[in-house]
């Protein structure tokens, strides 16, 4: 995470900036259609705080280790989209939400406790 912009999407390991809400939704739809077992993860942060950066790094690591390339990470900066805090019921940051696969899971913190993240995301090490 070398660039200054945290508001972006990582698609199959690649970071793609999210430009708007609608576009993100389109992408989500695309995902659902294209890959049934793909993971959609949303990371809510508030600016580039140490916790946000740590969370993003930790998340990327876990995803690479456990999900290979079947995942999308959307990073949402609440400072830029304050309305989303209300719409998505976000209080603590960073908050990670597993949109897919269902059920929706919610994890808070900088994701440094890997064991807990795995439990929270229902992840088992890929064999």
């Amino acid at each position: 995470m070398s660039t200054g912009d945290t508001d972006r999407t990582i698609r199959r390991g690649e970071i793609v900036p999210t430009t708007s809400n609608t576009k993100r939704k389109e992408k989500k739809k695309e995902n659902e259609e294209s890959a049934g077992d793909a993971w959609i993860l949303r990371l809510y942060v508030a600016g580039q705080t140490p916790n946000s950066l740590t969370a993003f790094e930790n998340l990327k690591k876990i995803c690479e280790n456990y999900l290979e390339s079947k995942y999308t990470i959307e990073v949402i900066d609440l400072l830029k989209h304050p309305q989303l805090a209300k719409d998505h019921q976000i209080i603590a940051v960073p908050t990670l939400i597993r949109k897919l696969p269902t059920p929706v899971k919610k994890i808070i913190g900088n994701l440094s406790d890997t064991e807990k993240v795995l439990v929270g995301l229902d992840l088992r090490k890929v064999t």
Partner: protein
Amino acid sequence: MKKNKTDAIEGMAEIEKIPSGIKGLDEITRGGLPKGRPSLVSGGPGCGKTLFAMEFVVRGITDYGEPGVFVAFEEKIDDLKMNFRSMGFDLDELVRKKKLVLDHITIERSEIEETGEYDLEGLFIRLGALIDEVGAKRVAIDTLEALFSGFANEAILRSELRRLFLWLKDRGVTAVVTGERGDQSITKYGLEEYVADCVITLDHRVTNQIATRRLHIVKYRGSIHGTDEYPFLISEDGISVLPITSMSLTHKASVEHIFTGISRLDMMLGEKGFYRGSSILISGQAGTGKTSIAATFIDAACRRNEKCLFFIFEESESQLLRNMKSIGVNLEPWVKSGLLKFHAVRPTAYSLEMHLSVMLKLIGEFKPGVVAVDPISNLYPIGDDIQVRSMLMRLIDFAKSLQITGLFTSLSNDVDAGAYTVEPTEIHVSSLMDAWLILKNVEGNGERNRAFSIIKVRGMAHSNQLREFILSDKGIQLMDVYKGSEGVLFGSARMAQEGSEIDDRLHKNEEIERKKRELESRRKLMENEIALIRERFAREEDEMKILIGQDISREKATAKTKKEIATQRHVDR
């Protein structure tokens, strides 16, 4: 520049406040809640925290033009809207006008895994967005402590809460934050630690099956405030806090007199009646005529074209009207013309505070010249001495501030007590009263009569005499009573006494006449005797005069004879 300086100094003396809009609260806090700072309201479940917070926000919008934010952690928006519609708050309308924004924050711990450090920036952003949405000046958070059930890391939570309160202050919004009451502390999680300025607790107690709500200002930094526990009510138009006592006794005393409608009573009161704005207690046993006095008083007031408000706890309006007709007091025309208003309700219908609030509300709306409560003793089942006294104190103070004359009847329980004993419960109340009239049943000679006396009238000379109280179809009469060797006489004994006195008087008159006649005859006798004596004396006088004459002539003759003898003897030669 200079002006600004003095403003700042004045501001330091008392912190700036904004009116909460909650009835009575602004009175006891002397102005409202600290402006631009958070206040904490704490209490147990169902004590009215949410209502307090909501009323603060809604009144801010409707009464003071300050937009507001209401954040609910516990209730859903739709539930809130529904609950407050019943209180007459149309939240939808305010939301539509962009004056109010409601937000429900859900925290479900079961869904949340904590995986390292975090902060509550999301909440701040969220609150900030809400405040900006309507340009809010007031914020209510109900109840912030829900956060503690949502997050496990208390250390983070506490530092974030501290930050939140500072943040609210920085934003310059006046906030009400509610908290759950704790066992040892004011709030369960010690929120009071973070709120330096104003902490209020609400309480909901049930005594004798009747619930009483109380409000207490625990602390209010930089401000004078009432320190008592104040009862408050939740009625159809929100919270009303009732200061038990007015802060001071500053009402103006009237020098105007008003007649009682009972002419003899007016005479006993120096022919002037009571002072306007007096509080008058009429106490007595059952059936002694308390209500009748009250009704007569009210009738007299209505005749003077004064409005009257009559609170009755024992009878219905129509029953009282009918009963009073039997003693020649017809109140019905006054009801029809709108001068007289009844409020008949069972005392147990609701709590003391509720009664008081209803009374104050009605008095405020109707603006009567006379208020009567019949009887106050019926309030005792729903409150103890101190509570009833407090309530009456508040009622009397309120009435006095408006120069309303208060008439209170009280039933004495002690049937066997003599005519002069005083009830202990009445002592508590009587000190509040300016005047105290007492009615007693007096039994004797196989009948029961009523005795009436004035125990006290503040600031007025009054009769100390006991009177017999008679109720007839011509109204109330007060009669003199007789005090003889057998005690005070009432009823037929009094009439008998009156009769025998008349006999006595007649008898005495005859005696005097007789004595006068005797004296006259004696005088005549005496005069006759004097005449007789005079006659006798005159006779004796005549006889004596004759005798005296004879003696003188005899003496002369003798002298002549002696001379002749001497001549013959030639004595001188």
